[in-house]
């Protein structure tokens, strides 16, 4: 089995490497475009995947409603931006206010969803919490659809096409660059939050052992709420950014994006924050390469195939720890 895995691995890498290098030499600009496009896509996945992986790390729940939080973030930004735009406010103010509102409202929704649908189920079987999450996801989707519209709403890009960016704009647009830079900043901030602050320490402790954490005086409920809020905030940023990138929003965007981000989180090893980022980048870049060089209609099949292949070789994801269960 082991020998088989090694042979298969070498063969796949060899074939991909050979064709890869051939293609890169043939058309380096196209390759660069695909690579950067993949990086953008991966950054968005990473922003959403963080919420999944943090929540999973703490309460072992697949938060199905997370994609909807992301959608609500994008929706709120759209609504705020349109209202302020009609009132004739300054565009710079609109950008800031739209993003702030999106983040605040997403956080509030994340917090409320946790209180309603997950908190009463802390001690219940895990599948019950999963069904509750699915119900919440369905509810939020339909709530937005009924209160607003089921059609796609055009979303004017909040990020202007900077003048100084013109020379390289054909390879990577200003929006894509903004997405990548923002993601890097958010990642650094989040890493610092988890590593250096008191609440970050409490989060790590809760993830390791809830009962022990509460024994040393950590308010576990508050830590869980904070995790949901932080995860929702990153999802909201992702929502605004992707709405700028794609240019339209509707009530159903959260589902597929959430699914992909979840795959990315599992790919990297669910529960691990660096794993989620790495998994997202791997997924985003390889998807972009695949659609660029092969068939675009099998994009999703490819995403799932990568997942299956990686999990067969590393059953706990790329960076996940191999857990040995003890008696």
């Amino acid at each position, binding site marked *: 089995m082991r020998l088989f895995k090694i042979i298969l691995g070498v063969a796949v890498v060899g074939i991909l490497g050979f064709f890869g290098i051939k293609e890169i030499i043939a058309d380096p600009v196209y390759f660069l475009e695909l690579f950067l496009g993949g990086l953008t896509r991966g950054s968005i996945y990473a922003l959403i995947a963080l919420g999944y992986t943090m929540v999973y790390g703490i309460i072992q729940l697949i938060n199905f409603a997370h994609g909807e939080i992301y959608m609500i973030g994008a*929706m*709120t930004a759209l609504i705020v931006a349109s209202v302020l735009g009609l009132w004739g406010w300054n565009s710079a103010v609109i950008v800031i206010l739209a993003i702030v509102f999106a983040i605040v409202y997403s956080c509030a929704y994340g917090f409320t969803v946790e209180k309603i*649908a997950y908190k009463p189920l802390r001690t219940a079987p895990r599948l019950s919490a999963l069904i509750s999450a699915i119900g919440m996801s369905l509810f939020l989707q339909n*709530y937005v659809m009924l209160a607003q519209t089921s059609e796609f709403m055009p979303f004017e890009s909040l990020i202007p096409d900077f003048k100084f960016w013109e020379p390289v704009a054909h390879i990577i647009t200003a929006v894509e660059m903004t997405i990548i830079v923002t993601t890097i900043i958010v990642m650094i901030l989040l890493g610092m939050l988890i590593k250096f602050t008191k609440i970050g320490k409490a989060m790590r402790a809760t993830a390791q052992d809830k009962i022990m954490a509460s024994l040393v005086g950590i308010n576990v409920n508050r830590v869980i709420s904070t995790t949901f809020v932080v995860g929702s905030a990153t999802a909201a940023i992702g929502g605004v950014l992707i709405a700028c990138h794609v240019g339209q929003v509707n009530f159903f965007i959260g589902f597929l994006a959430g699914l992909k981000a979840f*795959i990315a989180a599992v790919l990297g090893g669910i529960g691990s924050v660096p794993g989620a980022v790495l998994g997202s980048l791997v997924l985003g870049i390889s998807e972009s390469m695949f659609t660029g060089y092969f068939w675009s*209609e099998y994009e999703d099949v490819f995403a*799932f195939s990568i997942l299956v292949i990686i999990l067969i070789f590393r*059953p706990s994801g790329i960076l996940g720890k191999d857990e040995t269960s003890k008696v």
Partner: protein
Amino acid sequence: MVTKKEIKLSFVIALWFMVLTFPIMVIKVNTIKNIVIFRWENLLWTGIVCFFASLIWNYFLRMKEEKKKSDTKEDIPIVHRLLQNEKFKIPFLVAIGIFALVYPFVFSMYHTSILISALIYVMLGLGLNIVVGLAGLLDLGYVAFYAVGAYAYALLNLHFGISFWVVLPISALLGTIFGTLLGYPVLRLRGDYLAIVTLGFGEIIRIVLENWDELGNGPRGIGNIPAPSFFGHQFNQHNSVIYIYFIVIGLVLLTIFFVNRLENSRIGRAWIALRDDEIACQAMGIDKFKTKLTAFALGATWAALGGVVFAAKTSFINPMSFTIWESITILCVVVIGGMGSAIGVIAGALVLILLPEYLRAVAEYRMLVFGALQVIVMVFKPEGLIRSVRKIYKFEKIKE
């Protein structure tokens, strides 16, 4: 009953929800005509509804807590207690039997047709119950096997003219084969990794069906699938619905019989043991992998059978019938009904499938209500509507 403190709390919660839903409920943007409409009346309604909802919610939550504290002994769900009572059991089963027999003749074709779909879900739910409820493997790609069954019937009939009754065992076999093939590489994974990989496989099968035109016409699907025949006799449309209804009833009875026998068999007990504690189970000498694989393959078999009936009933299939939402609905049937309990799964399927059908009167709100109900049922009855009851072995003292 309701304290002053609770009213105050509900008031605060109502205010919170009014703020929370403000941008989405009140403001309506029309980006094409560039107008904004403010619907202030929605704000008022949200406040009032949230106030009372919160009162009721907190009241029931408190009742649940108090109940948990007060009685420590397990209370058996009323349905199980009734079924254990011999005096009640036989008339009850006879009544259900008679009701099932006369149903298609009393009610219209529309109602029969809806009941057929619900009964198909009973089959699927019972099949998934083997995988999720008994063996404890979270399978989110169950619909893949359902699609295998449906496409097997449609394609075999289209190309070779094979009839329903011949396809039924073939597709069951195909389901088993697919289940084994898929289970073989993925069953080494644990818990949620397994869930996401099975979900992936489910989606892969759907997307392949959608894009592979030569196989099944892609998204246009396959039409004109014949209804099952009765020893060569083909019924007219009305009678064939009734006929399919009885076939499904027969299959459901068969499923219930099988699942019941399986549950109390050696392999069934091995599944339950494996679900509860893998290590202890392996220490008792149970082959973990083989046991899981059997559960997975058997679950797939029922899904394929359900797929054949589905194709025969609708006479048209396309990949849109096999989305991930279908898997999720079947999972909901199992969990909301009560994991591991066959009666629960049947009740779950009937509630979950019939409810949205009859909620069509409030068509646009039905999915909203459906989502909310899922949350509510899970919060107040986390173990499902009809909880499974562990078999208790009683030892009687031997007189010396």
